[in-house]
């Protein structure tokens, strides 16, 4: 027969685990809301940059910039992987690492030299385990990446690209599509595939009613020179923001599932415990009755 006390002890330990996962779920929810607010505050800038590009395109300027041109020969490719510092978030890190590893192998045939940069302890550990230690690692991007932090990184990539030290930059991260949908993706950020908004120049114009004649200071070309790097930086920043939001969602979902599983387990254990307790009482009772009967006889 099962020992009811052992069952009770297990039930108690699962109760305390449940308490922890429940708390983590609540924390993740709060952090998710904050991260979400930050992400939506950041869209104001992106939207305006998009409008600006649309207006530039309207003025008949040909959009061409070194950062937009693919290099004929790729000598050195770089891959940046954005993962989280903490675990307990389901498949979040695993998915990103898997996507990144696949791209990393593809890059082996595309470029003679590769370098790997990983943000987040989980990703660093995962790549080390795979026998591919990262060349550069960061652990300071938490759930609130600031633009200043990302800017340092983005500027370095721009510098390396402009001076020809790298010919291609890919970023593996979790893109935030909606609160219910996030997916691990790998995007090529350098060379920039397109400027935000340049694909649909008409959209911004119609929203503004009659076309305004803009004066460009110092010139449209000069503005373009600045807007392309800015566009890149904003893209990198968005990757980090998306990753932060997705991480919190993943943790929320994982912890919710863990809490529910703990609930289920507690229920099952309670049933077993009650049955065992009842069984023990019954057998004791039978013993007593049996003893009484024996004495009578």
């Amino acid at each position, binding site marked *: 027969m099962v020992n009811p006390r052992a069952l009770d002890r297990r039930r108690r330990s699962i109760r305390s685990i449940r308490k922890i996962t429940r708390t983590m779920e609540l924390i993740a929810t709060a952090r998710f809301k904050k991260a979400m607010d930050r992400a939506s505050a950041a869209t104001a800038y992106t939207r*305006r940059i998009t409008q600006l590009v649309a207006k530039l395109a309207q003025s008949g300027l040909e959009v061409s910039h070194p950062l937009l041109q693919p290099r004929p020969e790729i000598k050195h490719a770089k891959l940046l992987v954005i993962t989280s510092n903490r675990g307990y978030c389901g498949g979040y890190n695993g998915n990103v690492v898997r996507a990144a590893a696949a791209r990393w192998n593809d890059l082996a045939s595309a470029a003679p030299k590769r370098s790997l940069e990983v943000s987040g302890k989980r990703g660093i550990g995962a790549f080390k385990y795979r026998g591919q230690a990262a060349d550069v690692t*960061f652990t300071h991007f938490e759930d609130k990446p600031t633009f200043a932090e990302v800017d340092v990184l983005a500027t370095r990539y721009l510098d390396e690209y402009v001076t020809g030290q790298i010919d291609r930059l890919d970023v593996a991260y979790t893109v935030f599509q909606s609160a219910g949908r996030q997916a691990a993706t790998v995007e090529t950020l350098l060379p920039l595939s397109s400027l935000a908004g340049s694909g649909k120049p008409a959209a911004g114009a119609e929203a503004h009613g009659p076309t305004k004649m803009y004066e460009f200071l110092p010139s449209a070309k000069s503005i373009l020179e600045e807007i392309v790097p800015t566009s890149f930086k904003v893209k990198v*920043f968005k990757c980090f923001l998306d990753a932060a939001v997705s991480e919190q969602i993943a943790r929320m979902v994982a912890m919710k599932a863990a809490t529910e599983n703990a609930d289920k387990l507690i229920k099952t254990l309670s049933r077993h415990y009650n049955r065992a307790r009842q069984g023990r009482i019954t057998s004791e009772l039978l013993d007593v009755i049996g003893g009484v009967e024996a004495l009578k006889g």
Partner: protein
Amino acid sequence: MAESHETTGGTLQCIVVTPETTILDEPAEFVAVPLYDGELGIAAGHTPLLGRLGYGELRIRKGASLQRFYVDGGFVEVVDDVVTVLTNNAMPADQVDPAVAAERLSAALARPAHTPELMEIRDRWWRSRGRNCGSRGTGNNGGATAVGRPAARILNPME
């Protein structure tokens, strides 16, 4: 311009946006922005304009009050008496630390600059030498050191 002054009541709406958040969205009478090649003053009724910002001081006047920011590159858009400043970095001028800025300047000048690209990079370092100051000094980043913000004074001799 006289008519447009009357129609608009002579006020502008000034919006300052950084990649992280909208810093400022309030009415103003006069805005001076540091363009790439010199300072530009904007009053109500200005013609539609797209400008590239340099680094320097952004001044927003409303009545007797004057707000000053240090901005570091970006764009300005003027349309329908709305001045939108898009910048990487906008910081109230009184938070600027001259000592750290000077240090960053000398570090920037020490960088190699023997090709046009490197020269451009150095100039950018020089320009942005005040970046990251006042905020967290945590963890470093990707190759650059955390640094202070430049004094608007040094950058802006016209003051």
